[in-house]
């Protein structure tokens, strides 16, 4: 007899208001396999899995688990059906201990006392079975991200999950940690569990999965046996056309040192040192990339250079002049542009109309209105020029910014910052959540800016992007610059440095 598949999704459809996140999706995952799902940002992977986990409700479609149709009206139902999920954004209570987090929702009785001992015991057991050790009494916010993820996996296993969904688990891990995770997943599969692994990293898919499904714009466009496909084919399926994984650019012509960072130390809001005694220079006409796993101080470094966060010590010099401690408005006037890492939280005010966002940060400029006043006509005219030049669609300066797609929103930010002709441009995650067409466009603009003799600092968690754009690569680990490599350094070399293993 043929074994029933672990999961069968039939005709799943989901809309978030105007966004059609999942379109009539059919997917089968066989028991005891590792099934990969890849797709670009915003393709609908998380949405689909959250539906399976009962976090969202599908508008249409049905779900079979182990051959039986069940309705998953909430996560409780999913857990009961043996499904566990590790979310892209961890679902942990930060000021709780590991034990409390694991017990939450599976307390084993109205009073905590009894359940606690049982939980402790089975945690020990899981630790032994899968090599997932973590101190049960540690408080989550004091744990490293890798350990937090371990807690998430333990949470799922503690609830008796047979089917484990991991949503982009490696985004926050170093390559070495990722390899360790994959080993654990292998053990889980060998014990008969089913794993669904979401990622958009092709390397990972090839390394660990048995089968792989590709999502694009809310649809599953293909499902392949991993052994029978190639990286190139998957990439093409993902973006819908042949991809050029490199950027055309001439060698850099570095000029004078424009920006110097000297012994910079920066703390985050909790008072933890995130940037630790960092020094480097950037010359006019070059792109310096900073590689590193997310959360190793890159964000704080960018914020310090652009004046959003006050450094604790050290200094930043622009053309030899001390600029550390100045506020972002002042720095903009001195010629430091900034494409922020998160357009939704920093780069844009979503409820504003497009033209209003096109002046954000430069709104005090006299060309947008005399004295204390703003001149809407002038603002709109200026915005329309950028819209045309950057092919921002729809070409409507009065449209609410929230109603532009991710790629076009990012173009609004890029246009604003590049068109002010800064001496120095600080760029964080320039293409996160942006479709491939826009990626190419933005990359080209960045290279053009370099060729116009500007100094650029680029931070990205996408190693490919760093390697494609940078002229020099600095690797950041635990708040320190652990080394510098030329742009042709291999992924492996950089990966080891990002893990803090080699310099």
């Amino acid at each position, binding site marked *: 007899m043929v074994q029933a598949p672990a999961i069968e999704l039939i005709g799943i459809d989901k809309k978030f208001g105007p966004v059609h996140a999942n379109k009539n999706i059919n997917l089968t995952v066989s028991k005891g396999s590792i099934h990969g799902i890849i797709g670009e940002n915003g393709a609908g992977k998380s949405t689909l899995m959250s539906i399976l986990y009962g*976090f969202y409700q599908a508008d249409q479609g049905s779900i079979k688990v182990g051959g039986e149709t069940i309705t998953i009206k909430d996560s409780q139902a999913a857990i009961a059906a043996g499904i566990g999920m590790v979310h892209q954004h961890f679902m942990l209570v930060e000021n709780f201990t590991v034990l409390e987090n694991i017990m939450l929702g599976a307390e084993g009785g109205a009073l*905590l006392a009894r359940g606690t001992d049982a939980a402790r015991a089975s945690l020990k057991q899981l630790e032994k079975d899968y090599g997932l050790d973590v101190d049960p009494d540690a408080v989550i916010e004091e744990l490293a991200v890798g350990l937090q993820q371990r807690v998430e996996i333990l949470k799922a296993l503690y609830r008796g999950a047979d089917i484990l969904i991991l949503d982009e688990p490696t985004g926050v891990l170093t390559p070495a940690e990722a390899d360790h995770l994959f080993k654990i997943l292998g053990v889980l599969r060998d014990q008969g569990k089913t794993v669904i692994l979401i990622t958009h990293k092709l390397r990972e898919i090839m390394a660990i999965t048995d089968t792989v499904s590709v999502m694009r714009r809310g649809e599953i466009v293909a499902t392949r046996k991993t052994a029978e496909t190639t990286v190139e084919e998957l990439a093409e399926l993902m973006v819908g056309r042949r991809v050029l994984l490199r950027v055309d650019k001439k060698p850099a012509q570095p000029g004078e040192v424009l920006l110097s960072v000297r012994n910079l130390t920066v703390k985050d809001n909790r008072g933890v040192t995130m940037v630790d005694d960092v020094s480097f220079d950037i010359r006019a006409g070059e792109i310096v990339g900073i590689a590193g796993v997310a959360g190793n101080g890159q964000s704080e470094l960018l914020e310090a250079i652009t004046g959003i966060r006050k450094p604790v010590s050290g200094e930043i010099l622009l053309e030899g002049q001390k600029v550390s401690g100045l506020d972002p408005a002042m720095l903009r006037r001195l010629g430091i542009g900034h494409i922020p890492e998160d357009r939704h939280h920093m780069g844009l005010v979503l409820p504003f109309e497009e033209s209003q966002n096109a002046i954000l940060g430069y709104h005090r400029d006299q060309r947008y209105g005399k004295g204390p006043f703003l001149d809407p006509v002038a603002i709109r005219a200026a915005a329309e020029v950028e819209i045309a030049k950057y092919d921002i669609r729809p070409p409507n300066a009065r449209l609410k910014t929230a109603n532009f797609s991710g790629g076009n929103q990012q173009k609004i930010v890029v246009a604003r910052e590049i068109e002010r002709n800064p001496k120095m441009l600080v760029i964080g995650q320039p293409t996160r959540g942006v479709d491939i067409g826009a990626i190419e466009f933005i990359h080209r603009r960045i290279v053009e800016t370099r060729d116009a003799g500007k100094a650029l600092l680029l931070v990205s968690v996408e190693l490919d992007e760093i390697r494609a754009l940078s002229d020099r690569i600095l690797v950041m680990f635990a708040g320190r610059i652990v080394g510098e490599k030329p742009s042709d350094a291999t992924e492996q070399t950089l990966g080891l440095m990002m893990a803090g293993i080699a310099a």
Partner: protein
Amino acid sequence: MENFDMLVSILGSTVRLSIPLIFTALAGLFSERAGIFDIGLEGKMLASAFAAAVVAYLTGSAWAGLLGGIGVSIVFSIIHGFASITNRGNQIISGVALNFVAAGLTAVLGQAWYGQGGRTPQLSGDARFSPITLPGVDAMREVPIIGPLYVNVISGNNILTYLAFLAVPLSWWVLYRTRFGLRLRAVGENPGAVDTAGISVEWLRYRAVIVAGLLCGFSGTYLGIAQSAAFIKDMSAGKGYIALAALIFAKWKPVPVMFACLLFGFLDALANFMQGKAVPGIGEVPVQIFQALPYILTCILLAGFIGAAKPPKAGGVPYVKER
């Protein structure tokens, strides 16, 4: 000895004035630890004081009054929940709105039913919670130091007073030793974690605000039919806000909440006591200063000069899954 008697008197007054604060602040504690800010404590207290007084008057039973007070207070809680949990409205606006509704409705109904300027009829006997004399009072009277404290501060309060002090450890126990408490604390920090653990965020938060309603019911009842013998228009007189301040001051923890409330109660008692008396070295201080003192002090406390207060992380933010 004169001074000691004064102290005993002030302490007795402190206890009486702290009780509504303790109940109310604990109510706020449950609500806010679950992530629902509740600026409507004031209104709930007022509404339940009215309901308690009306029911006690109609039935002649203080216990029935308590039930009435709790019932109405819970209704207000549920409306607040409906606005801020189900409809994801602004919690502060909802609280402010309910304060107005309570202030207006109690006055309108009170005047329409009893025609005493929004007051309810005077209660007596079993319709009120009267002071209880604890055993051994007579024996204790002669004991120095402890005696007067026992007789005048510990004994001679009504049952709700003792319940308030019981509610403090009970709240602690519920919050830190039960499943409900674990989930409640979790939902105020990260509702997503609760949701993905298969627990309904909405229902959990509803239960939290209902507990808040329950406790406010006690405080309102205390005001209406224990501390006084009738409901009077606007009788909560800002106590809900003071309780809120105490809650912040106590960093959302049950036992410190009690001490914060006792502190504010003490200030109030001291203000009453110092009225018209000369402060050594300063002379007679205008009553207004004493009256404003709790509020001034709250601002100073809030200014964080005594250590910053960190509210529950998800507090005030509606849980929105789908945009």
